[in-house]
């Protein structure tokens, strides 16, 4: 029981830090509340779809921005727009915020600005992926120890 309490405490503290540092917003909490016995892996499934989305869209953006003869900024913007939507849906606040700035550079057809944003969004995505994977590992440890996952408001 003590082990479960410790793990739950770690989970709560880690979740709180992700919110405090701006990695996640309330939308992620709403996702956690949707998880129940009928959909026990819902949050992990949503996160996996988000990771797939991110990787595909970041690759699309990179390819479009590599075009030396002429960047199709509408194509870049379309990918950023999708990524912004996905990141909003999962509560990935820092990724979403970079997308907002990224779209401005697309609109201004500023390739250098876009490249900087691409670098930033790649960095933020990697950070978030690592942190969510840590969070999910903690969840697994709690469940393996016979405990339940606390929902952090």
């Amino acid at each position: 029981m003590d082990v479960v309490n410790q793990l739950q405490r770690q989970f709560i503290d880690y979740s709180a830090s992700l919110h405090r540092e701006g990695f996640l917003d309330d939308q992620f909490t709403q996702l956690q509340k949707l998880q129940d016995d009928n959909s026990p892996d819902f949050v992990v499934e949503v996160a996996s779809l988000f990771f797939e989305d991110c990787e595909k869209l970041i690759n699309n953006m990179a390819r479009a921005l590599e075009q030396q003869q002429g960047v199709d900024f509408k194509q870049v913007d379309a990918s950023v727009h999708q990524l912004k939507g996905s990141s909003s849906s999962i509560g990935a606040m820092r990724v979403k915020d970079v997308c907002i700035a990224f779209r401005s550079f697309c609109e201004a057809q500023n390739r250098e600005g876009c490249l900087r944003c691409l670098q930033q969004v790649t960095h933020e995505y990697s950070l978030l992926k690592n942190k969510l994977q840590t969070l999910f590992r903690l969840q697994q440890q709690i469940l393996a120890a016979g405990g339940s996952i606390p929902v952090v408001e």
Partner: protein
Amino acid sequence: MSGNGASSSSLNMISGEDVVNNNLTALVVDDSPLLRLLHEIHLKKYGLKVQVAENGKVAVDLFHLGASFDLVLMDKEMPVMNGVEATKELRAMGVTSMIVGVTSKDGPGEQQAFMEAGLDYCFEKPLTPEIISILLEELNKHNKKD
């Protein structure tokens, strides 16, 4: 309040915590697998039977094949057939389902253009549990009148 083209601001803000209906059906139309899953789980929580479609053409084809849904959640930007085109086509077919547009927060005219295609309501994505429960309240009231 009901009927095509009503604005989102005309909804009554009724508490919908206990709106659970096992008779309603919904179609989630979105090219994002993440958004499809998200909205599907949201709606299933309220007891709806949910199908998904990855673009507007798939949604229109479902209706052509005789499917019917009480509620359609329609994304705006989709390949093959976007939400505006799909909504226009569904209304032209005589579909009277509640069609709710889901958009990103971009451009002042984005929601207006989508509403004019024949939506009942239009909201920013993702839909929150509060908005979903309000929509279901409206749907239940609308169905009781029929």
